[in-house]
C-alpha cells in the first residue's frame, strides 16, 4: 500500500510536468517559477528546521561512548570512538558523516538450534548507503557546470574522474550507474526484509521513487535522447542572476527531470531527509565525553524538592542515637 501510493505520487508528479509543459505550455512556471521557489523553500526550510533544533538546548552531555575512556595514562584512550577533546569529536563526526562509521558496525543476528544466537557482520546496508550518498553528492556537484560560468576547474576534474573509464559516447559516468544501482538496492532491501517492510512508511518509499525518477530522467537525457543543454544552462544561469528566461527548444523530458528535483528539494526540509542536517547536531555523537572533567550546564535547570540531612536526622534521630551513630543535634 505504502509502496503503491508512493510510486503513484511520483508518477503523478511526472505526468504533471509533462502535461504542464507539453499540453498546457506552462513553460515559465516549470522553468522559472518552480525552480526559483524551490531554491527559496529549500534554503529557508533548512535554516528554519535547524534553528528550531537550536532553540532546544542540550541539557545533558549524553555522549554514546563506543571505546575506552580517557582515564589513567596506561589505558589507551580511543579518541575517535570516545572523544575526549575537540579533535576526537571532529574525527568522530568526520567518520560518521563521510564514512558512516556507526553503520559499519552493523551486525545481523540469527537464532540457531541449541539455542545459539549468532552475530554476523553485515555491511550491505553500509555499502548501499555509502554508494548512494557519495554518488548523489558527486552527481550534485557535477551539475554545478550548469550553474557556473566559467566552469570551475575542480568541477571539470571531478567530472573527468567520474568518467575515468571513457566508455561510451557520451562517456558514461560511474556515479550514474552507481546511483541507480544503490537506489534499487535500497528499495529492494526494504521490500525483501520482512522487518523493514513492516517498519517502512510511505515517507520511506516516496523519496526513493523520487530519486529514481530523477536519476532515470537524467540518464535518459544524457545517454538516450538529446536535450538542448546550452539552453538549459542559459535558463539555470538565469535563476541565479535573477534574469530568468525560458529558451525555446528544451524538451519536456528535461522539465520532468527538473520538476522532480524541485519536489525533492521542497520535500527535503519537511521530511526524514533532514537527517542530512540532523547528523551534525545529534548529541550522542557530537559531544566529547568530558563529563567529569568539565561541568556541563543545563540552562533550564530548576530547584526541586529535596530531602535534606536535617529532615532525615529529625526523622531518624532516636534510632541513630540508639545505634551510637554521630548526630548533628543531640
Amino acid at each position: 500500500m505504502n509502496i503503491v501510493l508512493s510510486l503513484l505520487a511520483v508518477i503523478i508528479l511526472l505526468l504533471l510536468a509533462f502535461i504542464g509543459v507539453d499540453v498546457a505550455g506552462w513553460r515559465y512556471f516549470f522553468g522559472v517559477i518552480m525552480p526559483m521557489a524551490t531554491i527559496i523553500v529549500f534554503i529557508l526550510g533548512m535554516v528554519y528546521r535547524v534553528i528550531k533544533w537550536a532553540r532546544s538546548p542540550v541539557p545533558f552531555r549524553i555522549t554514546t561512548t563506543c571505546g575506552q575512556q580517557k582515564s589513567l595514562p596506561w589505558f589507551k584512550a580511543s579518541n575517535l570512538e570516545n572523544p575526549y577533546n575537540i579533535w576526537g569529536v571532529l574525527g568522530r563526526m568526520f567518520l560518521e558523516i563521510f564514512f558512516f562509521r556507526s553503520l559499519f558496525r552493523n551486525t545481523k543476528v540469527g537464532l540457531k538450534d541449541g539455542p545459539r544466537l549468532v552475530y554476523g557482520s553485515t555491511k550491505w546496508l553500509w555499502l548501499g548507503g555509502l554508494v548512494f550518498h557519495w554518488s548523489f553528492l558527486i552527481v550534485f556537484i557535477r551539475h554545478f557546470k550548469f550553474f557556473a560560468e566559467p566552469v570551475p576547474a575542480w568541477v571539470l576534474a571531478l567530472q573527468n574522474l567520474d568518467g575515468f573509464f571513457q566508455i561510451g559516447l557520451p562517456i558514461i559516468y560511474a556515479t550514474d550507474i552507481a546511483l541507480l544501482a544503490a537506489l534499487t538496492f535500497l528499495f529492494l532491501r526494504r521490500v525483501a526484509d520482512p522487518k523493514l517492510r513492516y517498519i517502512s512508511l510511505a515517507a520511506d518509499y516516496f523519496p526513493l521513487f523520487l530519486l529514481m525518477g530523477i536519476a532515470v530522467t537524467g540518464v535518459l537525457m544524457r545517454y538516450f535522447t538529446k536535450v538542448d543543454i546550452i539552453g538549459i544552462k542559459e535558463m539555470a544561469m538565469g535563476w541565479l542572476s535573477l534574469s530568468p528566461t525560458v529558451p525555446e527548444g528544451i524538451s519536456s523530458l528535461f522539465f520532468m527531470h527538473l520538476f522532480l528535483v524541485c519536489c525533492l528539494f521542497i520535500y527535503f526540509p519537511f521530511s526524514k531527509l533532514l537527517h542530512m542536517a540532523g547528523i551534525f547536531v545529534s548529541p550522542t555523537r557530537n559531544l566529547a565525553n568530558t563529563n567529569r572533567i568539565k561541568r556541563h550546564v543545563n540552562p533550564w535547570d530548576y530547584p526541586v524538592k529535596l530531602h535534606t540531612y536535617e529532615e532525615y536526622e529529625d526523622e531518624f534521630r532516636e534510632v541513630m542515637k540508639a545505634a551510637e551513630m554521630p548526630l548533628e543535634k543531640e
Partner: protein
Amino acid sequence: MSEKSKKPQEIIQTIDYKPPRKKWMDPAVEFRKGTFNYSASVDKLKYLDLPFPRKWQPTEDDWQLPDNWQEIIHKGFKDRLNKYRSFRVFMDICVRCGACADKCHYFIGSGDPKNMPVLRAELLRSVYRNDFTAAGKIFGTLAGGRKLTVDVLKEWFYYFFQCTECRRCSVFCPYGIDTAEITMMGRELLNLVGLNIDWICTPAANCFRTGNHLGIQPHGFKDSIDFAVDELEELTGVRVNAPINKKGAEILFVAPSADYFASPHYYTLLGYLALFHEIGLDYTWSSYASEGGNFGLFHSYETMKRLNSKIYMEAKRLGVKWVLGGECGHMWRVIHQYMDTLNGPADFLEEPVSPITGTKFENAKSTKMVHIMEFTSDLIKHNKIKLDPSRNDHWKVTFHDSCNPARAMGLIEEPRFVINHACNHFFEMPENTIKEQTFCCGSGAGLGTDENMEIRLRGGLPRANAVKYVHDKNDVNILLCICAIDKATLPPLLEYWVPEVDVGGIHEMVGNALVMKGENERATDLRGTPYPGKEGSENV
C-alpha cells in the same frame, strides 16, 4: 514465579523474527502475565508528590486517566521538545534504515516487532508527527501520524517499560539516535498522567526518605556494615574499620545499597572493606547517602535530581575531599553524565587525588567522583596492594560489561585490568556481546522484578547465550559484573539458561586475592567456600 514455569525450549520456539502481517500502526497490547509491571503504590507516589496517585492495574480496561489526559500529554510533549534537543532531533531524523532492529535484547529474545528500537521510538514519533509537524497534520496516517488514543497510551506503557535504556541501539544508529532518551521521555509523559510502575517508584520513594532504595533505616544500615566487618574478620582474621557518617574523613564512599543487603553483592562489599583497610584509606560511609544507584533515572529528570542531590550534600556536610563510587551500572550513568549538571558545581570538594599513590584523577576533576575500578587499577599499577590470583583459581571468569559504564563512560579496560591481576583464568565472551556492544542483563532501568519474569528471561537471552558460549568452550563458572542490578538479576537469568554459572563482582575477586597484613591463611573464599585441600580445616 509461575512465569518461569515455561521451559527454555518453549520460550525459544516462540521467537520469530518475522513480523506479523498486521500493520504496526494499529495499537494492540495484551497485558499478559509475566510481560509487564504492576502499577505504583499510591502512598509511594504521594510521598514523592507525583501526580494523580490512584489504584489501577495495567490489566484493567479503565486506567482512570484524568479527564484532560490528552491535553496534559500534549503539553508535556511540547515542553520536552523545547527542553531536549536530543528529543526533537531524534523525533525528526530517523530514516528507518533498520540497523537498530536486531540490536535490542528484547527483540532478540521476543521477536516482538515493537521491541525493535525504531518502532519503540515510532510509538512516540507517530504522535509527534500527528501533533507537531505540518506533514502529519496534512497527510495524517499517510505521513506516519497517529492520534493519541487510550490504546496508543497503553502501548506506550507496555513498551516504554520494556526498554532497559541500555543504549545498545544507539551504538549502531548512523545518527546516534538513543532509544534510552526516547524511553526516558516516554516514561516522563506517562508519569504526567499518573502511570508509573511500582518497582521504580517504591525504591525511589524509599531512597528519598531513608537514603537507599531498599528503605533501610540508619541503624539497619549500620548493622549490615558492622555485620560485614564481623564476617570479614571470621574469614580473614583481620578486623577492619568501617566508619559511618564520619566527619572530616578524606573520602566519602558511596555504593549501591544492594551491596550491603543482597547476595552476591555482599561479597563485593567484603572486598571493598578488605581493600580499604589494607591500604589504610581514610574514608567514610554515609547512611544518608547510602545509595549510589538512582531509580530516579528510570523515572524522570526531577526524581533523578532529588535522589542524586544527597551525595554532594552529604560530601559537603561531612567535609570530605572527594567521593569514591562503588560497582554499579546506572549509578555511573547518573554520576558521569548527570550529577555535576544536576547538583553541581562541587566547588566545595577538591580535585581527586589518590592518597595512596598520589595519582591525580584528572578525568574526574570537575565532578570529583572516582570510579572504584579507576581507583583500584591505579593501586595495582603502582604495586600498592599485593594480590594472589591463585586464590581465585577455582573460578574461571568472564566479564559482563554493564551497559552504562560501557556506553555512557567508556570504562572498558579498567575492570579488565583489575580482573587480570586478581584472577588467573579470564575468558572474554564473543566480541559482539562485550564492550560497547555489550548486552543488557535484560532487567535494567527498573524492570528487575518477578512480575515481568518472562520478558526478563527473554531480554536476558543474548547475554545468557554468550555466557553459555564461554561456559561450553572454556568451562567458565562465574560471570563477573560491576553493576548492582546485574548482580541481582543475572543469577535467576543464568539459573534459567546456564545453571552452572555463578555471578560475582570484581571486588569480590580482589578481596579473595588480596594478601592482607596479619591475615590468617585463607581457608575459604569470601563466599565461605573452602579452598581445595582445606575443607573443614577452619571454621566456615
